């Protein structure tokens, strides 16, 4: 069974770039995209097998990343999924808030594609391929 990576981000261009960066790693997984916090949660709950990894955007209208993260952590069936909080911001306060809410890792969306690809690879190394215990 292919592991699924779920991308939750309201910016469609960014979801596309993330998908391309992920595909270019050449690893084996399925990708799913949700363009809002609500849609993302609905998707996660619908699936029989939960995603192996969630790339969650911090700043989204209405339900933002922090709220989605809290709902995931509060749900027993979902709380063990590793969540990467992704963002465009460079404020330290955002990073602290994300970690406090339960993000496993905080990733800044690098503008340089090569750098972003490297960052994605490192994350996959941690959470997908090595099956390292994360909670």
């Amino acid at each position, binding site marked *: 069974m292919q592991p699924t990576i779920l991308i939750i981000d309201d*910016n469609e*261009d*960014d979801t*596309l*770039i993330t998908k*391309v960066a992920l595909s*270019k790693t050449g690893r084996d997984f399925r990708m799913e995209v949700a363009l809002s916090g609500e849609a993302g949660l609905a998707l996660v709950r619908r699936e029989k097998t939960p995603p192996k990894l969630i790339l969650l955007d911090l700043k989204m209208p209405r339900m933002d990343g922090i709220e989605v993260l809290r709902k995931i952590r509060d749900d027993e069936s979902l709380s063990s999924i590793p969540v990467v909080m992704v963002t*465009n*911001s*460079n404020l330290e306060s955002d990073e602290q808030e994300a970690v406090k809410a339960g993000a496993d890792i905080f990733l800044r*969306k690098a*503008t*340089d*594609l*090569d750098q*972003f690809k490297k960052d994605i690879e490192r994350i996959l190394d941690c959470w997908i391929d090595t099956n390292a215990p994360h909670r």
Partner: protein
Amino acid sequence: MRYEKEYIRKDGTHVPIELLVHVVKDAEEKQLYYYSFLTDITERKRAEEALRAQAELLSLAHDAIIVRGMGDKITFWNRGAEETYGWTQDEARGRVAHDLLKTRFPKPLLELSAEVAEKESWEGELIHTRKDGREIVVDSRWAVQRDMSGHQVGVLEINRDITDRKKAEADVLTLSEGMAARNLELESSNKDMESFIYSISHDLRAPIRTMAGFAKIIKEDYAGKLDAQGQDYLGRILKGSAKSTRLIDDLLRLSKISRQEIDRIGVNLSNKASKIVEELRETNHERNVEVVVQEGLTASADPRLIEIALTNLLGNAWKFTSKTENAWIEFASTQQCGKTVYHVRDNGAGFDTTYAEKMFLPFHRLHSESEFEGTGIGLTIVERIIHRHGGQVYAEGEVGKGATIYFTLG
């Protein structure tokens, strides 16, 4: 009735006397007899004369010099008083001083008189009204004059018109209050500007990332489908978006510096510089640059900010010596007029000193992108950091010979 007269003694000398005469009348108003009291007022007259003589000397002064005798009546009024108040000597003599001048005292007259009686003098500001009705502020000094037996003979009053000075002082106060208000306005407006720049830069990041990201993806995956011209255009898009990215990142870095709290502690500048140089060497193995860092350079500074400043300065020196054989960089200090002046010197490309000041302006460069890469924000950041430390920064250079950036930490 009271008279001042001069009697002649048996020995022929003259003596000034005060003659006090009471008439005693009967019930029908018929004069019965007189009571006479004679007082030798020689001493009193002498003291009065002395006072007047002194005052006469001072009639040359521009200050108003007034002598007040019994009942505060004016007995002396100099030229200066005539000029200051408009009343002539004849008009003023005999009048009660504070009536004539409509004096406004800073304290009730009774209190003031008590003070004067105690201290024999007084100094303060009064408001007087001139003959023409105009009010003036005077700096007034009083000195009590007594005769040999200790009786108060009069008060010597010297007044100086300070209306203009007071007005000037008030103007200066208004001006400086106005400036303080303007400063607050400017500070607030600066803060607004900074927030504005910050949020714009931040908001621009997403679309710039989109452009840069997809241009790169096209280059990687679809370049083969483009002819030479198409590939050239694509290359330009890529360079442009990469440049926009750097500009935005630099703007955000710059605005972060300005907003950051400054926390000064003792910092070892030599250590910081050496570490920065090591990192430069590590990322550029192929380069062979001689770097001299003076030992023991310390200063009171914000460690993070000063590291950013040194990184920029040393990074610049490293960059601009990239085309120089036997590249050499120095970080040292000298003492100038009791102040420590640090400098980063290199023997690289240098610059035309005519444009020395422009170098510090944001996004201003003295070299083109093809000569040396960069957005022109490095020195702006350095300047802002140094200024936040209360220091100064300036540059010297010569094309082809090298450059030196000097700075102090306030």
